[in-house]
């Protein structure tokens, strides 16, 4: 097992800075997810770790050793490609043993490790088949088995579930989580699916335009996004943002003509001045919705009602801006109805309107 360090890694393609000075430390045995929109440089960052991409600057350190100048095969890594890249001319068994054969592992050990890996991935019956005789999900398992049979220090995966249908993806997600618990290989996992990231990651590094904008646990990323970008990218539907004005020296904020009381921790925070503009960020599920006015609630008009089974999603209009609110499925609402939304004070975030950066409340600031 090993730690992985990306140290100020930069990779350019012509004028595009695919990865721009990224520093990221992955702990021993950790499941780290690189998450971000298409083209933000996730794959490139992963390929830098693998040694498949020559970096323009920076170092890669694996298990305390600088591997920047080492070939991919000498870094103690294994990788699962998005396309799986399962060799079509080899049987499943030959695919799985490919790396072991290259390493000249003794036959008996190869046999045992192959059986073990095949069992772990539940593909024991498929060993003599060719990839063309497998389903997409089975091919994906072969690709994972081929990687873990190497007992790698570090396992790299690039969107391994993106070619599977929704149901299979859900199933394989749980399998990968179980697999990680059993192998404990340090894992770097690339995805643009935020649900996958939240469910799999010990920590998530959110990337944007080649840089990491936040790296933290899934719950911290979800509840305390470091910017409007993270709040908007993670969560489905994303975080709502309302323009507001700070009042009473930071003890309250005015949104849609209504005064919302703020918890004490915001008062002394940097960026909070009386009369200053802020963005108030609230997750869709962090509202109390009532049909009568009350203190700390601002008015809104229901526009669309979407029952989603477990919850119901309301699209509402607040002062001409739309927002998304989830409510319990048994509540009665009609389009055009007037409702009042009270953001739960402990779930509310404040962001600077210009930069989109989160305001750090005082206690949290002290905790860091």
């Amino acid at each position, binding site marked *: 097992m090993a730690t992985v360090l990306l140290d100020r890694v930069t990779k350019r393609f012509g004028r595009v800075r695919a990865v721009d000075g990224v520093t990221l430390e992955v702990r021993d045995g950790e499941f780290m997810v690189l998450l971000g929109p298409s083209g933000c440089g996730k794959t490139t960052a992963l390929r830098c770790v*693998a*040694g*498949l991409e020559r970096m323009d600057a920076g170092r890669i350190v694996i298990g305390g050793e600088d591997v920047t100048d080492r*070939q*991919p*095969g*000498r870094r103690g*890594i*294994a*990788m699962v*490609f998005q*396309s799986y*890249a399962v*060799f*079509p*001319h080899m049987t499943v068994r030959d695919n799985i043993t*490919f*790396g072991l054969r*290259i*390493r000249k592992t003794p036959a008996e050990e190869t046999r045992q490790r192959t059986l073990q890996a095949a069992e772990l991935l539940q593909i024991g019956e498929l060993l003599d*088949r*060719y*990839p*063309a*005789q*497998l389903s997409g999900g089975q091919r994906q398992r072969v690709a994972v088995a*081929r990687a873990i049979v*190497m007992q790698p220090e570090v396992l790299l995966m690039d969107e391994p579930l993106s070619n599977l249908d929704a149901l299979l993806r859900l199933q394989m997600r749980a399998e990968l989580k179980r697999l990680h618990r059993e192998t404990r290989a340090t894992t770097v996992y690339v995805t643009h699916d935020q649900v996958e990231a939240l469910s799999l990651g010990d920590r998530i590094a959110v990337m944007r335009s080649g840089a990491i904008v936040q790296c933290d646990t899934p719950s911290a990323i979800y509840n305390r996004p470091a910017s409007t970008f993270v709040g908007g990218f993670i969560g489905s539907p994303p975080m709502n943002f309302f323009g507001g004005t700070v009042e009473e020296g930071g003890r309250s904020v005015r949104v849609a003509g209504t005064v919302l009381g703020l918890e004490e921790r915001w008062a002394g925070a940097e960026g909070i001045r009386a009369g200053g503009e802020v963005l108030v960020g609230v997750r869709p599920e962090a509202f109390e919705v009532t049909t009568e006015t009350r203190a700390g609630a601002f008015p809104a008009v229901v526009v669309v009602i979407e029952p989603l089974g477990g919850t119901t999603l309301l699209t509402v209009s607040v002062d001409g801006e739309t927002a998304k609110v989830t409510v319990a499925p048994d509540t009665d609402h009609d389009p055009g109805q007037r409702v009042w939304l009270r953001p739960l004070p402990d779930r509310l975030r404040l962001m600077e309107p210009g930069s989109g950066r989160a305001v750090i409340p005082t206690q949290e600031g002290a905790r860091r």
Partner: protein
Amino acid sequence: MAAADEVPDLARAGRPRIEWLPYLLLAPSLVFLGVFFAYPLVQAFGLSFLRPEGGLTAEHFQRMLGDTYFRGAITNSLLLTAIVVPIQVAIGLVIALLVNSRFRGHLWFLYICAIPLAISDLAAGLIWLSVFTERGYLNTLLHMVGAVREPLTYLSAEQPVWLYGAIIAAEVWRATAIVMIILLAGLQLIPRDYFETADVFGAGGWRKLWHVTLPLLRPSLQTALIIRTILAFQLFATVITLSGRQVPVLAGEAYFWYGLYRNPHVASAYAVLIMGVSVVITWVYLRALRTREEEVAG
């Protein structure tokens, strides 16, 4: 009432409508192939098995087999093919791999290597003749560096190794490019992920070539081998230019029997023999390099 309504429907269903467009689009190619390949093929078969005055006979084949040049022709054709084709595939593969590695200037290298593609076999023969003939470039060069005083004779029956070497050199130079182009196209069809997987699992250059590149290149290798082998049996102009009839080959004999002895029957027998050998060898290649159904990349 209902039955009466159904009758015309059934009648219509029994007479399927024919889509003419595909046949129309195929027609020009079919006409071309028919006029220039199928018809001569049938004619050659006819000429080789029929008496001029009518009736089947094996006498043209007997004459072919009994001819003094026959043994030499079939030996040379087989030997030249067996030597030239492997060299062409090996060099073609090396060049294709080099170009595909995209080193600096690889496109220029590709263009230069592809030049012989544009040169006819006769012209290629003449170019190499100008190298190996008594007052040719080779002797001039050797004379200049003082290696020889008298010009040497290479292209004569007394120097079979030189004669063969010149033919092989000309053929390799002329027709390796087509092998290279086929293999390069095949290489570029192989997804990069396969090579990178091999890299990640620590396969070095040779193992990557043996375990990944060559197996995935098999369909292209098969195509290149078939094309080159068939064409090697039709080898003719380069040999005639360099050796006259000192190195008889099958296609050359067909030409001499037709043009020199004015006997289209024996010439056709040679043509049929060339075709027979080509068919057998193609079949062998297809069997030996077969891609199993289940291995087809999915």
